[in-house]
């Protein structure tokens, strides 16, 4: 693979005696959309959080865009500007309006002036279908609206890579579609994305590659057709049966 955006080698992560990641190799090429699936507790979130060092790896290498994230000498704040992250529970800044949520980081980090940021925030909110919510407080939004603001907020830093940790799991079913729509658009525009999700439909339609994790290891990976229609690993088979039969 050329132009590796994410290059993880032999990543291990322990929480005390709990060995959560047991030697992960994980690569993502430019413009690629990778969907991470696996049973609860398999370490999907932990892997994702190691990619922007919200968790410190116990050992192994995490290289993003040529930057060694796992090296403590790397300026992590600088590296994070390039890695957007969307959380299951949105984590919108409760003390700020929707507009301010989007504008905060670019203005604070000197990426643009306040006026430019306002213009950009309005455009981004327009692309996620929330141009009328610029002045609203996060508390007044529905879950689906919050998640779309969170995506706009991450995009405001103009990142090369976007990480999504179960972005639709906390949403009412009728809200899920709106958020997935925004993510599909993003994928079409060529964003490099790593998505943890249980939305198998989304994975089949959008993913270039599906990675199945269990017990802190990558068990199987391949194109959506390969993994969903013809799984090789026993664990993958039982997992998919459970998920699809729900």
């Amino acid at each position, binding site marked *: 693979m050329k132009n590796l955006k994410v290059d993880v080698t032999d990543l291990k992560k322990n929480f005390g005696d709990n060995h959560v990641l047991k030697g992960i190799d994980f690569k993502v090429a430019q413009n690629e959309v990778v969907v991470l699936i696996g049973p609860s507790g398999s370490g999907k979130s932990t892997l994702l959080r190691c990619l922007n060092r*919200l968790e410190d790896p116990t050992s192994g290498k995490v290289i993003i865009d040529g930057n060694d994230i796992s090296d403590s000498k790397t300026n992590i704040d600088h590296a*994070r500007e390039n890695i957007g992250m969307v*959380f299951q529970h949105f*984590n919108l800044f409760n003390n700020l309006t929707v507009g301010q949520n989007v504008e905060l*980081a670019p203005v604070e980090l000197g990426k643009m002036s306040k006026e430019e940021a306002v213009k950009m925030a309005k455009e981004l909110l327009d692309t996620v279908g929330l141009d009328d919510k610029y002045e609203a407080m996060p508390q007044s939004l529905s879950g689906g609206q919050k998640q779309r603001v969170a995506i706009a907020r991450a995009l405001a*830093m103009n990142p090369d890579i976007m990480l999504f940790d179960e972005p639709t799991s906390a949403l009412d079913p009728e809200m899920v579609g709106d958020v997935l729509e925004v993510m599909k658009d993003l994928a079409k525009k060529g964003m490099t994305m790593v998505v943890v999700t249980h939305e198998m439909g989304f994975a089949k339609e959008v993913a270039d590659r599906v990675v199945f994790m269990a017990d802190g290891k990558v068990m199987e990976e391949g194109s959506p057709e390969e993994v969903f229609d013809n799984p090789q690993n026993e664990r993958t088979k039982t997992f998919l049966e459970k998920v699809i039969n729900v």
Partner: protein
Amino acid sequence: MLKKVFQSIKRYQNSDVPFYNRSMIYLLKLKDIGEDRMKKIIALISCMFGLFVFINVYHEPQVNAAEKTYTIGTDVTFPPFVYADSNNNYVGIDMDLIRAIAKEEGFKAEIKPIGFNAAVQSLSSGQIDGVIAGMTITDERRQKFDFSTPYYKSGIVMAVAPKGNIKGLKDLKGKRVAVKTGTAGATYANSIKDRYGFRTVTFDDSDNVYNDVKNGNSAACFDDSAVLNYGVKTGLGLKVVTKPTDIGSYGFAVEKGKNKELMAKFNSGLKKLKANGQYNKIVEKYTGESATAAQKKASAKADSEGHTFIGLIKQNKSAILDGIFETIKLTVVSIICATIFGVLIGLLGVLPSKFARGASTTIIYIFRGLPLLVLALFIYNGVPSLTGSKVPAFVAGIITLTLNEGAYTAAFVKGGIDAVDSGQMEAARSLGLPFGRSMRKVILPQGIKIMIPSFINQFIITLKDTSILSIIGILELTQTGKIIIARNLEGFKIWTIIALIYLIIITVLTLLSKWVERRIND
């Protein structure tokens, strides 16, 4: 350069009240202040605090460069030797003597009526230069203090309630006897209690001793003959039933081996006063028939007009106002200092560094754990006896409250920040915002809202805790109450008045805080 500094100090001194107001407003606006301005404000406030301490420490020697000033500790009430007259001026044989000697010898005596016990302790720790408080010269005291030539001969007598059936020492078997802490009367009572089979109970103030006998809790009390005789003559309501035991004389004391110059001046001044007849005049003024008659008449007059609440407030208006002002001053300055200290220590406690968090936890643990009273005495009496430099009572009081209230503030600042969902910090960091910026822009504004009720609560506690500083002799509201009661023995009414005043100040403070809270929440 130095001149400039002093000029600016003068200016700050003159404008200290507006300064408090300004910094209060800054503090409350904290949430929408930018990084640079906040740094500047913190720097400004710390400078002010530094200056404030500096002024209080170095103020006196500077102003009185020509005449040397000595700080003289004395009792709160020990008539006829020392007591406050109705204008709250300290008078009595000891007071007139020390003032006359100071005049004779050309020095200034700054009188600190902090109570016998506190005076003796402060003398040992070097907080004050001398003590004149009807102190009997004993061998035990000679170990720690140097005494002047005796200025008054006294003995211990026993006083009882007039209606009781106690007529002498023999009747005390199985009874309880009241004495005042650290006095010769207490020493005497303890030396004979086994022989006569009585128990002793100690109080810090003379009026508590007398009251205990009057209301029958104790059968008798022992005190200096001059004091008790004076009291009996002026209507104290006790009667003396024994002859004075010859236990010696009163002397002026300085710390052993120190302040030799002051001691020499005292002795030479006393000699001159005795030679020119002024000494006899002073003693006569307070113990002669005319003096005691006048005092009796005065207290009778006070009786007729002053047993109402209004009368008591009128009589003690200026003393009470001074006390209120001192309490408010203490409260405002310590709220500001404790808030700054508490916020800084609280923030230290949420930094990623383990060392910083440990330091914060330790500071909170120590200063929240120490009783305020112990901390006050430690800073006022303990530290100076180690370092040898004086700490003015006001500054010691501010430091005490800053450390103690600041520790509580730090704890809820930390708690308030921890109460903000951890996802908020993760989201901010994931955007590339550094820790400090995430803290200020996202976490603190949410945390402060959680903390506001605790801040208001802490302000009120600070106000109440200023009363504990009466122990180190600060003339705030509580100490003022004690002194007034020492004079007029109107315990119930005066404490009612003092309590009401506290409630009024607390109400004002609460309303003010609520108003600020509403403004912040908008």
